[in-house]
């Protein structure tokens, strides 16, 4: 079973993504409500997919990606960015820092599924 961590400060967005993921296939979904929550859980647990919101208070998504890509545990874990079209610059930075793909809010379940399969492939090729 795939283990997914959603890092987003909006509980409604987390609930939406969770519902979408669970409708796709058997997944074990965990949630982190802030960058700090993620820092607490990342070193201790293994995930097969990380979904990260860029626009979060305190530790932003870019900083988190930079952290994740330098960590021992999740150096190569597929990482999907959730952002909006307003922050094109931030999105391209995220990709430079090591994100495997991005998805613009708002998105459909189908788009999420496609993006997930995309990032899994992308990170597989990179490894």
């Amino acid at each position, binding site marked *: 079973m795939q283990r997914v961590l959603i890092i987003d*400060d*909006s*509980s*409604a*967005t987390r*609930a*939406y993504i*969770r*519902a*979408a993921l*669970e*409708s796709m296939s058997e997944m074990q979904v965990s949630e982190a*409500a*802030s*960058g*700090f*929550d993620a*820092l*607490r859980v990342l*070193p*201790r647990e293994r995930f097969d997919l990380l979904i990260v919101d*860029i*626009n979060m*208070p*305190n*530790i*932003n*998504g*870019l*900083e*988190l*990606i*930079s*952290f994740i890509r*330098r*960590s*021992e*545990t999740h150096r190569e874990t597929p990482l999907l960015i*959730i952002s*909006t079209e*307003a*922050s094109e*610059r*931030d999105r391209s*930075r995220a990709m*430079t*820092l090591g994100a495997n793909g991005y998805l613009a*809010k*708002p*998105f459909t*379940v189908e788009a999420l599924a496609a993006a997930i399969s995309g990032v899994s492939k992308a990170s597989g090729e990179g490894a």
Partner: protein
Amino acid sequence: MAQGKDGDRAREEFLAESQELIETLSRDLLLLDSALKLGHRNPETVNDLFRGVHTLKGLSGMFGFDALGRMSHVLEDLLENLRLGRIEMSQQVLDVLFEGVESFQRLLSEPGDAAACDLESFTERVHSLARAKSATHNVLSDYELDPNMLGVLTEYEEHRLRTNLEQGLTVFRLRVRLALDVIDTALDQLKERVKNFAEIITYLPSMDGGGGDSIEIEMLLATKKPESELRAALNRPEASLSAVLRRRLADPQPSAATKQSPVAQAAAPTAATPSLPVRSDQSLVKRATPDVEVSLRSLTSVVRVDIRKLDHLMNVVGELGTVRAALARLVERLRAGAPHALGSEAHRIHRAFQRHLAEVQDGVLDIRMVPLSQLFDKVAVILRQVAREQRKEVRLVITGAETEVDKLIAEELADPMMHIVRNAVDHGIEPTDLRGQVGKSVAATLTVNAYQKGNHVVIELSDDGRGIDPHVIREAAVRKGLLTEQAAGDLSREELLNVIFMPGFSTARAVTDISGRGVGMDVVKTNITRLGGAVDIESEISVGTKVTITLPITLAIISALLFEVRGRLFAIPLAVVQEALRLPGTALRNVDGREVVTLRGTTLPLCRLAQLFRLQDTRQAAHENFVIVITVGNRRLGLCVERLCGQQDIVIKGLGRSLTQVQGISGATDLGDQQLVLVLDAASIIEEVLLARANPLVLGAAS
């Protein structure tokens, strides 16, 4: 959207979160508004607004609220330009922001209502505000900034860094090690310590000691203060603090930044190291003193609950109360009949049960309570909007916003409060030039004061406007045919003021942008009475008007006084009962066709419930031996009853659709022995009796 239970949960989360977001946006806008008046710009609040609108946009798209999505997109663009300094904050910009946030509320509650906002004209106005400033020299290249660090800044953070440097502030790098499990509160503490003189631009987690219990966080802080002051304020001797320097060391600016602490130099990463303090520096680890004394995790301690779940819980608690009452009777029988020891033990157990049940009841009630500040924030937004429409200047003074009421009551109060505020600005407060002529300050004051009084909450809204002239009301009421000349002439000053709550009194001007429904003060009264409350008005010409709302704190469980009329059991909320006493038969008098009794020197009007409800006399020659004195707001009435039957906590249940129109009755309750008891609605009975309407209430079929 995904279907099923998860989807439903997500949708409910969406509605709740959007509502919260909109409320926070309104609050932030008010904050910006008052800051702007003092000449401040509050970049952090602008960024909070941006983030809020941004989230709202994403959410509304995913949950199919397309109009809300489009509207928030337009506002997001505007806020993006604002926070990145492409346009300047101004009153004009703020007005557009207020307008936008106000439309969010409408679009959330009525997503299908295409007329809720005119997106096109709104977009046009937003675009007219946006005048892009020309690009400036990139100041960042003048400073010794780690490119890896710059690489993880969001566009906004980069903008704030640039702006602060351009304005000559010093930017410091602060490195501090914090325990992971308390990092939120520890950082909140740090923020609190520096918030008055430094802006925190970003927080970067460092990489060392992955899997450990603590982590090093690097922050960028911008301030005008010298390093020593910053260090003192931080109160963290173990933290490393260093100024970001200009590239050319010969440059004298900025003065406070030229000395770098040796600690910082030792720990500072070179541009070649992959970003930030990566090294697992033993000395750093040793210096670390995680904040073990703080263990509160504020971010995770709040749970959002659907009010319906609490209603259900409340019902169960109510049923338990009924079971307890039955148990109490059983215990009494046991004590009377069984061996002494058994009876006492049952009694003791029952007492313990009663005590814990009371705690559960209090607990559930407490969860439902929300501070009135939520409501008052809405009032502030409406007031600002109405005042601008009317070109009047109104200062809002709020006290007692921490007073708590049941969530449902707070919700139901929003509309009445809105109308009272609108009325105050529309009719009460004079035009600005007129205020000057009569020697009043140009800015009017609206005072909202809330406080708890026993089991009630009192909210007073006072303005310092022109006041209400009772003669004008009298003329208007006669003109509109609400009162005959004769009846109007007989009314006291206080009674005349209350005429504004009569249906049909409100003037045509009450059809407003705010409600769009043209409701008047009569609806205010109806809504508040329905909540078991009362509304009173006092006014003095040219001094001002005060509207006082009195409400029960909760609607769910109440202590009630039980009594009998014509052999039937009734209940009345104890909260409205002032006293109950034996009726002195000789003290009865008749004044203007109304029975009254003199009680300690004051005249108390009486109401015979048997007559009011037209109860048939099942027991001949019943005597109404007692009088229960009830008060709502500033009105008093004596209810004549035959027998007092003690007090009990009851859960009020609605009467079902067919009986909801029965006036004078707010619901029914079951006392645990299959006895249905009707609960009187004190406010509407007082209303009926004191205004002496012709048609009595009919209750023949109701019990």
